[in-house]
């Protein structure tokens, strides 16, 4: 019999709150945090708004926050979420338990370039005409003066997972993945497998990301992936609505403590839910577009349901990837129909992104936390900003107000640029 994996701790840093309770309350109340970008002057960008974490300081979470002064927001968010998750699980004390059996799996985003220095360096080393090749040698000469070494060192992609391990004394398996918007769900799924295969007893898993910086927004704008509804930012994220026009960029982090069941019971841990199913597939189709029939999404959902030993009819709520892009929402709908058949119309589906925006690499874990809370409270959050039905999206998206639903199993979808499809199933814990 395979080892069972339960969730015994949760921590989040989101635009809608820094505690799990605040996050969930705001989801049930249908609140949004979307507003004008404050990190930089984005007033002339095609997209001028985002879902930002505001007022955040690492010092509110860690006493020795100055140690991490050079780190990026992705690391700061991850450390804060990690602190809350470890505290919640009762594992903060580094003397507690066998730390070499406790690991980290982060689906974390990259750091960022220091935008002003980069632009200044590129402009300086460009020909006076403005076009033609940049003088690479001259570029290096000035960048060595204009960049800050410790800051640059902390942009490397292994650092958030490394700092989590270091700060919370987690000496077990240490992994980090970047599969775009699927990353933190994939991290959780593979962390579950590490515990199932006895490589660890505890895995602190999830993700952290912030792309609300000039190059992040520029890049997404050039791909025309972001909503440009600048006259009404708060209604811009409108998953499954006919008039959706792209996703709203968000930021934040979430970490959950995954624990082998007997290990959790032995130490009397609070069990929030059991992680029963994981499915992972690739579309093998295009760089950014999902397969039009949702073939990869269908198999990921079906695999997760089979992995949990369930049938589609057992799923009581689906937390959709629901990005508010034309392509995602219609193909995800097609995918759900592909798996659930006629039952697709009966299962409540909602998108947390309608309120939170899209936390990119951190989206999946934060949405899983919302699923666990919905499971425990018997109420599912709505999809807000849902006004005009799209004939291609004809399922029950729990429009605009939360709904009381008693259910035992929840499915959470995450799909990423590059074609990765992840489905996770959380279930009410039954011994």
């Amino acid at each position, binding site marked *: 019999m395979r080892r069972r994996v339960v969730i015994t701790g949760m921590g989040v840093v989101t635009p809608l709150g820094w505690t799990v309770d605040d996050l969930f309350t705001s989801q049930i109340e249908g609140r949004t945090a979307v507003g004008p970008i404050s990190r930089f002057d984005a007033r002339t960008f*095609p997209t001028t708004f985002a879902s930002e974490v505001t007022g955040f300081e690492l010092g509110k979470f860690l006493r020795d926050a100055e140690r991490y002064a050079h780190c990026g927001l992705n690391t700061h968010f991850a450390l804060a979420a990690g602190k809350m998750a470890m505290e919640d699980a009762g594992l903060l004390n580094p003397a507690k338990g066998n730390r070499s059996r406790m690991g980290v799996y982060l689906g974390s985003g990259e750091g960022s370039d220091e935008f002003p220095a*980069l632009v200044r360096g590129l402009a300086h080393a460009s020909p006076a005409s403005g076009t033609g090749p940049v003088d690479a040698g*001259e570029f*290096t000469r000035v960048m060595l003066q204009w960049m800050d070494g*410790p800051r640059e060192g902390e942009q490397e992609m292994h650092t958030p997972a490394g700092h989590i391990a270091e700060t919370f*004394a987690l000496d077990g398996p240490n992994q980090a993945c970047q599969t775009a918007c699927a990353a933190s769900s994939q991290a959780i799924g593979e962390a579950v497998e590490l515990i199932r295969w006895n490589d660890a007893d505890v895995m602190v898993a999830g993700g952290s990301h912030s792309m609300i910086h000039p190059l992040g927004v520029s*890049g997404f704008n*050039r791909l025309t992936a972001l909503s440009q509804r600048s006259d009404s930012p708060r209604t811009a994220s409108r998953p499954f609505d006919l008039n959706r026009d792209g996703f709203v960029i968000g930021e934040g982090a979430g970490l959950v403590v995954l624990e082998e069941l007997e290990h959790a019971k032995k130490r009397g841990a609070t069990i929030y839910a059991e992680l029963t199913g994981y499915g992972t597939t690739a579309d*093998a189709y295009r760089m950014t577009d999902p397969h039009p029939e949702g073939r990869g999404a269908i198999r990921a959902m079906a695999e997760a349901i089979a992995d949990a030993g369930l049938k589609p009819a057992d799923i009581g709520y689906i937390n959709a990837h629901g990005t508010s892009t034309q392509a995602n929402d219609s193909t995800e709908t097609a995918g759900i129909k592909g798996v659930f058949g006629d039952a697709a119309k009966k299962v409540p589906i909602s998108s947390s992104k309608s309120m939170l925006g899209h936390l990119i690499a951190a989206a999946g874990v934060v949405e899983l936390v919302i699923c666990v809370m919905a499971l425990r409270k018997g109420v599912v959050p709505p999809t807000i900003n849902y006004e005009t039905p799209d004939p291609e999206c004809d399922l029950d998206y729990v429009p605009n107000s939360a709904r009381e639903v008693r259910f035992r199993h929840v499915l959470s979808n995450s799909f990423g640029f590059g074609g990765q499809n992840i489905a996770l199933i959380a279930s009410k814990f039954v011994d």
Partner: protein
Amino acid sequence: MTETTTHSRRTVLTGFGVINPIGSGPDAFWQALLAGTPGVHTITHFNPEHLPSRMAGEVKGFSAKALIEKSYRRTLNAMARTVEFGVIGCQLAMQDAGLAKGTVPSHRIGVEFASVMGATELDDLGPASKHSIGADTVEPDMAVWGKEGLPKVPPLWMLKYLPNMPACHATILYDMQGPSNTQIPGDTAGAVALGEAQRIIRRGAADVMLVGGSEAKIHPLSLSRFNLFAPFSHRNDDPEGAIRPFDVSRDGTCPGEGTAAFTLESLDHALARKAKIYGEVLAVASGVDRGLKGPGMAQLIRNALTTAGIEPSDVDHVNAHGLGTVKGDAFEARAIAEVFGKSVPVFAPLAQFGNLGAASGLMELACSVLALKNGQLPGTLNHTNPDPACPIQVHTGAPRPVTKPYAVKLSYTDLGQSSVVVIRRWEGV
């Protein structure tokens, strides 16, 4: 347990693709390793005169256009060099394994790739930058950038650099619809990619996993950044002798570039299709040695040996990361010494081609795979004066006959993230 299920849990390496500063393709790479060909030289990709460290292992004359599947050539405009290396590495491994598209049912084959974010090509952002900042100004004018600079950024700019793009392109090229993941924990990324691929095959989610890594940091922005924080060698007058693993006069490392990729396959699947087998992957262990002290890595090695079912005395050689850094080499040597004493030869192939970062784990592992397969262990370059702080036996000079069937590969990051891989020479079932 039936014989079949026992087999199905074993995983073997059946295809190998490599592009390396000292030689590309399994044969040329192996011959250069054996010959001790130095691959680290003064940088030629761009003018390095202002960099404190001006040396690297460069791949010369690489043309993705010449190598990539013709049907996919048009997509090259969405690939930075690191992605190009990765895609070509995957192609070479699949070709070497004899796995044309469609050979394996699409649901039964996936990819685990080791890669990190690429640095922007300067010319991609040059025009937008020039347009958006005054000659004597420190801060760009964001209003100008947003309105007139941003449209000068190539539309696919972001996609060129994403770490998961080698895996993405490989899945499309070979219709691989199984799991696809991209590992990013620096120099341990290759090992954890291999470990995860092994778990995926063991749990039955795939029969074949393409496992690769790529890196292309010989780039003006990357090396400006790395020169500000990385422990690079400053032996600019002697590039070939710059990386000196475990040597008392070592002063830092140098970057390298390229790609290494394998196909990892369940033994059953490999035997059924009579695949050429390079070696068997027995164990992959990941953990953290906080503060690079040594005992944590030593324990990880012991765990991996236990998983592999072998003793330290069964090991032919330890393949170290051997960066040539003062602190890192001493750490690694302490861990090796704690488990093996001085009894096992240590081999640090990185001295020949530089540190390939996210691709380093699989590139260095490949050296041991080939050594076991060919029965000869090449010598480590530039280790001339042992350091008392590194109480291990480094194999140098002429190749030494392989006497035992197992090799152990170590990797780590500056934050102590550590990994150990144990492989076995293939001698038949």
